[in-house]
């Protein structure tokens, strides 16, 4: 036998072995898609989100209790956050090529709507988004395949109203970023604020990425109000509006939506925004503390945006599979609300083994997780928000609502 033939033979034997090994592995592996904007406007926070979801899956695997020793394997895909076609193609690949049992994602509201309509519903795959907050997703035709561990901005509008009213302010101007998120958020805030007896003098959009916002602020100032509500992005037009409003003396008090939370705001504005109030999704309690511990041990930053929600989204998927006793896509959907809500034993973050065990024994659980998960209506988080105030150049937590 020449050396060439021998090599060829060795290679084919090795190949056959590999093939057999992968066939065995496949029998025990359950794939879960993780589709987030690893490139694009959210690329700075998505690694933490993806890492948190994988942390939950790893915890499930380490327990050894999941569906008779099967293991969950995360498969990442890129939603890009803004490019609907790319996101849909990536999700399609997850479902058809990778044959995932469920999808954790997507992150931004626009692409999430696209994936729900074009991939999740037609293929009957459960999707759990950790961060899509558009009110439009509440009424989407999803055949109950879509869930989210982030609350709708409709809820945030109500919470922000409560916060502003608690300072006895009843006349405000609103400036929102000119996209689905800003428009939806602004509509829900204006409705809530007016229902609470307040007056909204103007609700005007601002475009992101401009150099100069003096014209926008001029219109806001002309309308007047005791306080300016800014529903935008902290690294974009939102901070431009605030800077221009401070410079021209148009407003000296601000209330901010969740997109405006970030250290860069304080770095940019210094002490001219002392006393600014705002809300951001966030939870307190044992679950959130346990998650923070586990995330830190895994080298993740638990205070980064939507990490807890991501952990919960992945954990819910695993628990629903356990409850259903199979990885059948429709069975997962039907088990989702049962594991997320009462009745049952409360399960907090980093305690997934306990939940898996109870479900294995045929019991009931109420998943609380890192963010006090409670799925309401068509399967979205009720939502807890952290109210903060900027004092001495720091975000200070006032209370949770």
């Amino acid at each position, binding site marked *: 036998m020449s050396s060439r033939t021998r090599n060829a033979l060795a290679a084919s034997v090795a190949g056959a072995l590999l093939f057999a090994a992968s066939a065995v592995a496949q029998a025990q592996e359950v794939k879960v898609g993780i589709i987030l904007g690893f490139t694009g406007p959210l690329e700075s926070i998505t690694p933490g989100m993806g890492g948190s979801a994988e942390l939950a899956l790893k915890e499930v695997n380490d327990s050894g209790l999941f569906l008779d020793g099967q293991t969950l394997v995360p498969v990442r895909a890129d939603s890009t956050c803004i490019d609907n076609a790319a996101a849909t193609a990536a999700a399609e690949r997850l479902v058809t090529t990778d044959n995932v049992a469920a999808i954790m994602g997507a992150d931004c509201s626009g692409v999430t709507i696209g994936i729900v309509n074009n991939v999740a519903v037609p293929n009957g795959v459960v999707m759990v988004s950790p961060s899509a907050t558009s009110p439009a997703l509440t009424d989407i035709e999803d055949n109950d395949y879509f869930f989210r561990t982030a609350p709708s901005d409709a809820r945030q509008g109500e919470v922000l109203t409560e916060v502003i009213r608690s300072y006895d302010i009843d006349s405000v101007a609103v400036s929102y970023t000119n996209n689905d998120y800003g428009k939806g958020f602004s509509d829900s805030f204006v409705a809530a604020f007016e229902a609470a007896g307040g007056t909204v003098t103007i609700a005007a959009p601002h475009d992101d990425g401009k150099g100069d916002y003096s014209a926008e602020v001029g*219109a806001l100032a002309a309308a007047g109000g005791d306080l300016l509500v800014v529903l935008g992005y902290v690294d974009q037009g939102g901070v431009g509006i605030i800077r221009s409003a401070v410079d*021209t003396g148009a407003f000296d008090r601000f209330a901010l939506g969740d997109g405006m939370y970030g250290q860069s705001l304080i770095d940019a504005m210094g002490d001219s925004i002392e006393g600014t109030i705002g809300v951001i999704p966030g939870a307190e309690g044992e679950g959130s503390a346990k998650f923070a511990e586990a995330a830190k041990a895994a080298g993740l930053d638990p205070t980064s945006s939507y990490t807890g929600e991501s952990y919960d989204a992945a954990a819910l998927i695993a628990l629903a599979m356990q409850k259903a006793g199979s990885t059948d896509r429709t069975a997962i959907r039907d088990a989702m609300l049962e594991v997320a809500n009462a009745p049952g034993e409360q399960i907090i973050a980093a305690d997934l083994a306990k939940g898996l065990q109870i479900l294995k024994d045929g019991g009931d659980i109420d998943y609380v997780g890192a963010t006090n998960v409670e799925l309401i209506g068509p399967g979205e988080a009720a939502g807890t928000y952290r109210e903060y105030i900027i004092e001495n150049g720091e975000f200070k937590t006032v209370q949770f609502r």
Partner: protein
Amino acid sequence: MEGFLNALVVFANFVFIPGLAYGAQIALGALGVTLVFGILRFSNFAHGDLMAFGTMITILVTWWLIGMGVTLGPLPTALLALPVGIIGAVAMALLIDRLVFRFYRKQKSAGIVFVMASVGVMFVLNGIVRLIIGPNDQRFADGERFLVTVRGFREYTGLAEGLAIRLPVAITVIVAVIVVAALFWFLQYSRTGKAMRAYSDNEDLALLSGINPDRVVMVTWIIAAALATIAGVLYGLDKSFRPFTYFQLLLPIFAAAIVGGIGQPLGAIAGGFVVAFSEVTLTYAYKRVLEYLGFQPEGLVQLLSTEYKFAISFVILVLVLLIRPTGIFKGRVL
């Protein structure tokens, strides 16, 4: 009386002062465009990105200076870095002329070929700027922020309304006046300036009388790049630097140059202020001003929503080209 003063202060704070600064920035940009058009006879679409390039170098030098601990006290450090930015932009403009436009000049290509080549140059410059400094917002204004603060003004005058004059606005106006005066002196009285005007008026006659065309072209690029950098740095100090915004500035700048009469330096300045004040006055909501004057307006009294700001430049451009293609100061017809 107090109502009238308050109305005046509101108007100055939200319309006049922003318009003045914006107008000066556009006018400086339009001067560069109009000079290139007058002498090289093509519309240079790369002007906005030349502004971005010069500003980028200024920003990088500013950061370096701040890193070295060198600042100008109350004034922005960028003013110290500005000469370096100008040198960088001039070098880039001359390099581009050597590599691109000189070839077409030798070929005696039609004007439209130059314009298309400048579009290519625009994309290349755009890419270079994004590659080096990135596509994001950069703020590089340091030192004092205000000359007059709203609170200070209110306390001093006792009026209900406040007026803010930011330091970059004051610097913009002062620098613009100095630069324009120097430019006009240069064009009117210096030998090279006269040569440039002669070349612009009648190329053949100028060549016959012994004017060196290469020198005229070179000086034109030097002045255009210097003006572009100054305009860009002033805009960036006043607002913020972002490559895409500078690309978008091309529209109001061209509108200004054409409104004033392209090829006419004085027209570029007038056009800059016409465009800037049209944008600001038409999108401002006059409710507060009218209230102080004793009216009780129902709505905001806003002619156009602020999103139409750029559309105004377009409308002005189209109107001028339709009604008076030579512009205010009888420039050339495009």
